[in-house]
């Protein structure tokens, strides 16, 4: 539990990056995203996700389109914009740098 808490802010901060990654990989709607995250330490809920998605859309990183579903009302399927893809590429690069740094700092100089 204590270990989990040490990374609370990191998990929170990474959520945006992960959402962009999920959307880049697949055309998804909110339930898919929640489903994919649910088995990970990044499990989240609608109450968090909808405001985050709307923020990302305001930043023009992603957009959605309505699509009919067999069961129930039409759904919003999200996809990245060009700006979103380029930002994700940058984030991926930065994330790799962080990983390398973390690895290197753990080794003796």
């Amino acid at each position, binding site marked *: 539990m204590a270990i989990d808490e040490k990374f609370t802010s990191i998990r929170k901060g990474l959520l945006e990056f992960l959402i962009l990654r999920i959307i880049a990989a697949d055309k998804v709607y909110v339930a898919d995203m929640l489903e994919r995250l649910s088995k990970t330490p990044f499990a989240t809920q*609608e109450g968090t996700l909808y405001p985050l998605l709307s923020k990302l859309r305001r930043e023009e990183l992603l957009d959605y389109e309505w699509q009919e579903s067999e069961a129930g009302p039409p759904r919003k399927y999200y996809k990245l914009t060009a700006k979103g893809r380029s930002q994700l590429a940058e984030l991926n690069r930065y994330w790799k740098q962080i990983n390398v740094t973390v690895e290197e700092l753990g080794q003796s100089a």
Partner: protein
Amino acid sequence: MNKVVTVNLNGNAYSLEEPAYDALRAYLDGAEARLQGNPDRAEIMSDLEQAIADKCRRYLGPAKGVVGSADMERILAEMGPVEADAGEGEAASPQQGAGAPRPEAPRRLYQVQQGAMISGVCNGLAAYLNVDVTIVRVIFVALAFLTGGIWALVYLVMMFVVPDANTPEKRAAASGQPFNAQELVDRAKQHYAELREQGSRWHDDWRRRRRTRRAQRAAAAEREFWRNAGAYEDAGYATRLLAGFMVPVFTLLSAAIFVALVLAALSLLVTGGIFDWTLPVDIPEWAAIIILVIAYQALHQPLRAASRASYETTAGPRHGWLAAADGVLWLGFTALLFWLAYLLIPEVRSLFDDLRFEWRHLTLAWTGW
């Protein structure tokens, strides 16, 4: 037995037990309050309602037509609390410093581009010192003259060194207004949403208007041109010849006045007087320079008007090329006059020599410092 309330969740009708309804109402009200100021609030709210409706459907079946309070509790737990700005970073998080009163933001020196003349250095300085920007500008220009241009270098350095106030936070810090991050962020978002909404409409409207404006302006220019062209034809041959002759004369005069101004100002700076004539004791140097500049303007303005008029008389309404050629002529005259003054007037010569010495002194002081 429980009362049942029917609700409309984003266009879906559901029957809820009253406690379930109360819990849902409280959840949605809380969400709405937390999304206060979010431009997409309505959209997020309907997304949330839709998600709740989907979950309600899961709890209902052929044998069960009403959502109970236990179901609703579970649904709302699944939804999780609505966060005002997920992942927006620390700066906008309202928890920060909550409780304690926000201290006045420290005032910082920035360049403020809004309403700037060049780069916003004076503007930022005025905000920092809390004085009118005109005062700062006048002082800067006066200093530029007094220091023989060194102050322009200071300005240049400040242009590169002083950071730009490119965010609302920095703009607020430039004048040190107590600044509520949340409020500003909210206002910016509100603005953005309005812009987004009206953007495309404005864009079309603006383009249409620009088209008509351009057409009107072109027509007006054409009319003006032909009217002036008429006047130009009307000017007699002798008048045109005289005007053509006067163009370089005016230019020569203008260059001469300019050279006189520069020499007088330099002499003032180096020797404290204008050549042999020393200042009356009670006029400080900077005041003398300002008087010089005003006198220069007084002589130069009518000359400029006269030379513009002669351009038009000589070359007609489309006299841009003549004005450009005249500008080059002016530069040539100015250089020539400086050179002649240096060659023929001993006072000017010694002034330039002094100046060279002063400059060396200054650069030495600069590198030493």
